[in-house]
């Protein structure tokens, strides 16, 4: 039920954001770079608002202690982050399809768009899940988790924008390839180190 609520909130946030951006830029013919930038800003805020909930809810409802008692930290982190990865990718794809549909922007390199979107969403999910866990025991956990996640995600957004703008027809192919490799590397680094960092603070 909690999972459904998170997914529905994420999807609703995407639809509202796409509508708001399209409405605000109604009379403008947008460049690929602007479209890519707006898309990633929407993804960034959608993720940092909804994904940390997965750990914050455990602390708020008092079930975190049960998990600490019976769960292995790696298993708990993977369980939580895989769900967040799924939610992030679904929300990201929906947001992208809706946004490109509303702005009538054509995709020049579809595979690059798909790679950047999926790798970017996986990185977002991994980093935000970890930040949610780090902030989960603070009294101002909801605000704090977003505040500490956003600076870590801004480099990712810059790579995402570089990749998606090339996929939408702006910039050189080599730049897009570099960004895609960077995003895949970021996703691997985040998901590989996340469980270890989480394990170190699991019973603090």
């Amino acid at each position, binding site marked *: 039920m909690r999972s459904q609520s998170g997914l529905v909130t994420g999807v609703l946030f995407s639809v509202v954001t796409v509508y708001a951006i399209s409405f605000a830029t109604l009379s403008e013919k947008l460049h690929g770079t602007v479209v890519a930038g707006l898309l990633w800003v929407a993804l960034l805020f959608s993720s940092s608002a909804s994904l940390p909930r997965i750990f914050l809810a455990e602390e708020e409802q008092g079930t975190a202690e049960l998990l600490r008692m019976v769960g292995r930290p790696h298993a708990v982190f993977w369980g939580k982050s895989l769900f967040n990865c799924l939610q992030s990718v679904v929300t990201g794809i929906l947001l992208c399809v809706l946004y490109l549909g509303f702005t009538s922007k054509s995709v020049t390199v579809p595979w690059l768009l798909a790679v950047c979107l999926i790798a970017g969403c996986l990185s977002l999910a991994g980093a935000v899940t970890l930040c949610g866990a780090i902030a989960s025991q603070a009294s101002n956990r909801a605000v704090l988790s977003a505040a500490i996640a956003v600076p870590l995600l*801004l480099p990712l957004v810059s790579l995402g924008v570089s990749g998606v703008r090339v996929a939408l027809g702006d910039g050189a192919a080599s730049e897009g390839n570099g960004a895609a490799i960077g995003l895949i590397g970021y996703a691997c680094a985040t998901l590989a180190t996340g469980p270890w960092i989480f394990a170190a603070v699991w019973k603090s």
Partner: protein
Amino acid sequence: MCDVGYWALDLCGGLEKLKTILRTLYVLLMGVAIVWSYTVPDAVGFQKPGMARIFLWHFPCPMLAVFLLMYGAWCAFRMFQSISLSPFQFKAETNYDAKVLWDLRSVAAMEIGYLFCLLTMATGILFSEVQWGAWWSWDPRQTSFLIVLLIYAAYFALRFAYSDGGKRAAFSGAYALATIVPSLFLVFVFPRLPYIKSLSLHPSDSIVGGLIKGQYGQCVCFILALVTVLTVYLFKMRVQVGLLEIGLEKRNGQLENLGNNPAPTGVVRPVYLPKSD
């Protein structure tokens, strides 16, 4: 025996004198550096070469800010090592002194690093106004360093959010480790991406490309060395202050135990239940 005592006293006095001489020498060298940075011949390639001298003081700041961020993360890693990276091995020999010391080193590095980060931004903004005509020109280098500043700020926000010392050390240490990849990317990769590089006004290969040479180059190296020495001194002082605070807290705890309000404790003894007939 008595001779040894006098010899030890002499040595201590000698060390104190040596420290005073070194401190005086450092202040003199700093004075030389300030004068030199005003009189050094102009470097080529700047729009207003005379006003570009702030570069001499700007350059060491980001170097040290990034180094201290990485060192802070390393100290956090050593802190986790001193506890136990595997939460299932509840180690009896957990080294609390080592844990506290590494946390202290980590926060000392972060605090001084944050100071250098602020100095980087301040000197960079001055340079931007003089050379590019605007206090803030959304230059990718400026922007990426602003994000590093935000990462530092987030670290301190996290530290302030936890009142319990153990939790504060663990969670902020974890965040320090999580910042390594994004920070390295922001400082070393992002400004060198081809598209970003084409937008940037900031010189990116001044040192690597050998553009800073001659007396200008020597002056940069001299200031970098002096500021590094100052950083080491500040770091040691900060750690010492932290240790004194911890010592004071321990002493307070001991006094508390001796006084009227000792910490709760107890002794295990057998249970005697009244016999019910």
